[in-house]
């Protein structure tokens, strides 16, 4: 080592690193295998470190989250006191709420199994937006599978171990998936406010031959049925241009496809739309962004991703749409891995 001059060491270092980066770009499989192998070797070290550092982590949580816990505790006590006053109403509400929750299940699709996992670790470095989950290849988790929580798409699996996996979040700059933007109300699985109708049925007395028999002029007995109907909310199609220069030929609720790309922790992901046509200009803030699906897509169609938070119009080019993810990525706990593979891979 001492034979080399300082400048030579620097040149050697840069060249070797550049060689590794080139190697990474040309042959991902080898690097992937290397990472997986190292993951297996390194796992016991991590396990030991987790056990050893647990008291420090607990202490840190105690210091940093004490105020939050106290606030939450007070809010919960308050909530409990309010709910105790009208237990009967709460029971009815819970029943209705549960029914709504069932109906509002994410449109995952009937043939897609899921594996429930818990988030057990965060990003090891600030420039990477990943989480670690506690389910892996033993439960059928594979690289590329989409990960969701109750709010929508969270990310996709990028690395798998026997009992764990790394999930790249949708805010990571390397996360890309095809999506479609659709108007806020036109979302599969979103239920319209229930409509209650009251029907009063007056039975008409008939004889054995089916002839109407008038027996008494007094009011006949009647029965009243109250029906609550939940129906899929469909907004009326309307023309809503967002810019004065925009064409008015586009219609709301038409799908607009593109690809969503993460931009790091502090900047919201962006959707680059595929074409610059009139439909693009019909996109509004708060419109829904859903996965597009398709034979090559890593996620099934219609998974909610987020809502349009900002639209950047560009002259002569398709607009850029900023998306606020539905899922609270900073506070993930339980997630579900969809055991979904694109049609193209299943066929192969």
């Amino acid at each position, binding site marked *: 080592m001492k034979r080399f001059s300082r400048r030579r060491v620097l040149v050697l270092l840069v060249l070797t690193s550049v060689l590794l980066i080139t190697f990474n770009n040309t042959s991902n499989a080898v690097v992937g295998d290397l990472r997986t192998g190292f993951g297996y070797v390194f796992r016991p070290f991590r396990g*030991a470190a987790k056990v050893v550092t647990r008291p420090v982590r607990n202490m840190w949580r105690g210091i940093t989250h004490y105020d939050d816990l106290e606030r939450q505790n007070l809010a919960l006590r308050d909530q409990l006191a309010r709910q105790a006053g009208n237990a009967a109403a709460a029971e009815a509400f819970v029943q209705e709420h549960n029914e709504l929750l069932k109906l509002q299940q994410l449109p995952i699709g009937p043939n897609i199994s899921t594996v429930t996992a818990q988030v057990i670790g965060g990003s090891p470095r600030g420039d990477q937006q990943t989480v670690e989950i506690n389910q892996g290849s033993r439960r059928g988790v594979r690289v590329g599978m989409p990960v969701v929580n109750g709010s929508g798409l969270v990310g996709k699996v990028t690395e798998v171990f026997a009992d764990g996996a790394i999930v790249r979040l949708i805010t990571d700059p390397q996360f890309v998936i095809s999506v479609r933007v659709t108007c806020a109300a036109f979302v599969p699985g979103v239920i319209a406010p229930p409509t209650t109708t009251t029907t009063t049925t007056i039975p008409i007395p008939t004889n054995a031959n089916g002839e109407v028999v008038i027996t008494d002029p007094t009011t006949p007995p009647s029965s009243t049925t109250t029906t609550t109907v939940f129906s899929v909310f469909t907004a009326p199609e309307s023309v809503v241009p967002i810019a004065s220069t925009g064409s008015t030929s586009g219609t709301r609720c038409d799908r607009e496809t593109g690809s969503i790309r*993460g931009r790091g922790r502090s900047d919201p992901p962006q959707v680059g739309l595929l074409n610059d046509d009139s439909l693009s200009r019909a996109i509004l803030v708060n419109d829904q962004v859903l996965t597009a699906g398709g034979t090559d897509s890593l996620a099934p169609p219609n998974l909610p991703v987020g809502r349009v938070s900002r639209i950047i119009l560009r002259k002569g080019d398709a607009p850029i749409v900023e998306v606020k993810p539905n899922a609270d990525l900073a506070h993930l706990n339980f997630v579900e891995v969809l055991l979904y593979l694109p049609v193209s891979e299943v066929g192969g």
Partner: protein
Amino acid sequence: MLYVLRQSWLRLTAVALVILAIQTTLCAEMKPFGETVDLMLLGVAATGVVGGSQSGALAGFVFGIAFDLVLVTPFGMSPLVYGLVGFAAGYTQSLTFQPTWYLTSGFVAAASALGVFGLAVVQQIVGPRAPIESSIVQTAFVVGIVNGIFAPIAMPIQRWCLGLKRVIV
């Protein structure tokens, strides 16, 4: 076992693995001011400050390879940046004679902050094109401060790794 650890290479790798284990567990959860602390940079910068440019660059390369094996960022990015950080930290050794502990801590802090900016710049070149976030200044500041605080602990460890004795005049 102890004989094996006498070799500085192996000691450096062992320490890199230990720091990596702490980085991926403790630092992934403990986020002062919302920023992830980079203890790998601390190890690299401390090696550079106590061992000079060549040792710093070598440590940076080893630490970078180890870190890239658990990250999903482009492979080779961390060895490049960490190697340069180690080299730069080691360069400070030639600028001062018998620096005080707080001066060396300052060097470690500065080198760590430089590393955060370096990672962002290199990611622009080799990784996906994402805008450099405005919060990077805060990240660099927090990483620099935390690494500067822990530098007096890290430097004797890295000195042991390299088999160096502290010279007291």
